């Protein structure tokens, strides 16, 4: 039975939320989530690539021969990743500086290739856009949530967005006397936080 457009969109937000339910695409999840801002930025970049690669794969699905489909998907995805990288360097350079190496790595993010293979290659353009947006926004939310947890305890701040002149967010959430756990913003802290969040997600789902 074919699902409706809304169902395709909302499944990515909770039911199949990529990092927590499918445990996919963990490299950026662990790597960039030192602040909320980085998480949101990385999530949006991935969403952009995901939506456009889904559109292109869905519209070319009758032309792409089955035997070389993965190669074609990778060309499409790689193109959009480089587009994202160049646009970020040209327009949001400070964010590019922070995300750095993780932007080119979107190419090998298995969520993007996974959606192209499992969804866009078999469905029409409208459904594919809904799917890409849903999964992408779900990914962004997961990164932001993990980033919030790590930044809150690791740096005592919550930055939503920074412009060259001002910062949107709360500094020193727990007051100036709070000594941040630097552990949380380092790599092992990412694993611990992700583990705890997976645990909470599974508890909520297991009733």
């Amino acid at each position: 039975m074919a699902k409706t457009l809304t169902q395709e969109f909302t499944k990515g937000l909770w039911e199949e939320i990529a990092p927590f339910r499918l445990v996919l695409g963990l490299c950026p999840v662990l790597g960039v989530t030192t602040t909320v801002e980085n998480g949101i930025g990385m999530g949006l970049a991935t969403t952009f690539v995901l939506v456009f690669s889904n559109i292109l794969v869905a519209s070319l699905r009758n032309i792409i021969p089955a035997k070389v489909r993965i190669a074609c998907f990778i060309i499409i995805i790689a193109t959009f990743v480089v587009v994202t990288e160049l646009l970020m360097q040209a327009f949001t350079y400070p964010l590019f500086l922070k995300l750095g190496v993780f932007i080119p790595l979107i190419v090998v993010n298995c969520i993007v290739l996974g959606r192209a293979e499992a969804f866009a290659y078999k469905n029409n353009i409208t459904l594919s856009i809904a799917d890409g947006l849903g999964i992408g926004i779900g990914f962004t939310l997961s990164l932001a949530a993990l980033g919030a947890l790590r930044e809150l305890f690791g740096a005592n701040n919550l930055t939503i967005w920074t412009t060259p002149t001002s910062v949107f967010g709360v500094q020193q959430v727990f007051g100036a006397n709070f000594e941040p756990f630097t552990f949380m913003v380092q790599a092992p802290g990412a694993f611990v936080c992700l583990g705890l969040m997976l645990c909470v997600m599974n508890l909520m789902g297991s009733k």
Partner: protein
Amino acid sequence: MREMVTMVVVLTVLSALSGGLLSGLRNATASKIEVQQLKFVKGPAIKEILKGASNDPIADRFALKDGEMERKFFVGKFDGKVNTVVLESSGKGYGGDVGLMVAVNMENDQIVGVGVTTHSETPGLGATAKDDPGFVSQFKGKPINETYKVTNDGGKINAMSGATITSRAVCSAASNAGMIYKKLKPQLEEKLKEFK
């Protein structure tokens, strides 16, 4: 046979389109990206270490060939004299290369100041090299033709606590800058005359 041909044609066309699109976009954004790099990374660092210069060091820049590589230099003017040149260098840090801007007074071969630019060090530890004036100010007034080391390695530079590797990277970048400076000094003096 027919299938083979379709495969080759589809892949070729797709690759060609992608290549065309990307090279077009790259050309379109190249100048903008350079401006952004100067504005967000190199510019602030240069302005900080050349505080009090009467010219705009970002505008007064030039490039020199060093073997295969092209290096960029920025010029600083103090008290009506063009005597300071900023060079770029880098050292191996904890998370990748640490870029360093080193300003040198050409009259007495002393470091005017150094500033960290591009880096991928740990936030809160190594990354403080960029914001902590106490650490980089140790280089001020020191001779450029010297090999710098942190105190742990028998040198004179006090490392930042919790960031010894980053401190080492900054030291090796500073030493590196000294070598570039030594090699290119005649050409640099030649070039500086043009800015008078």
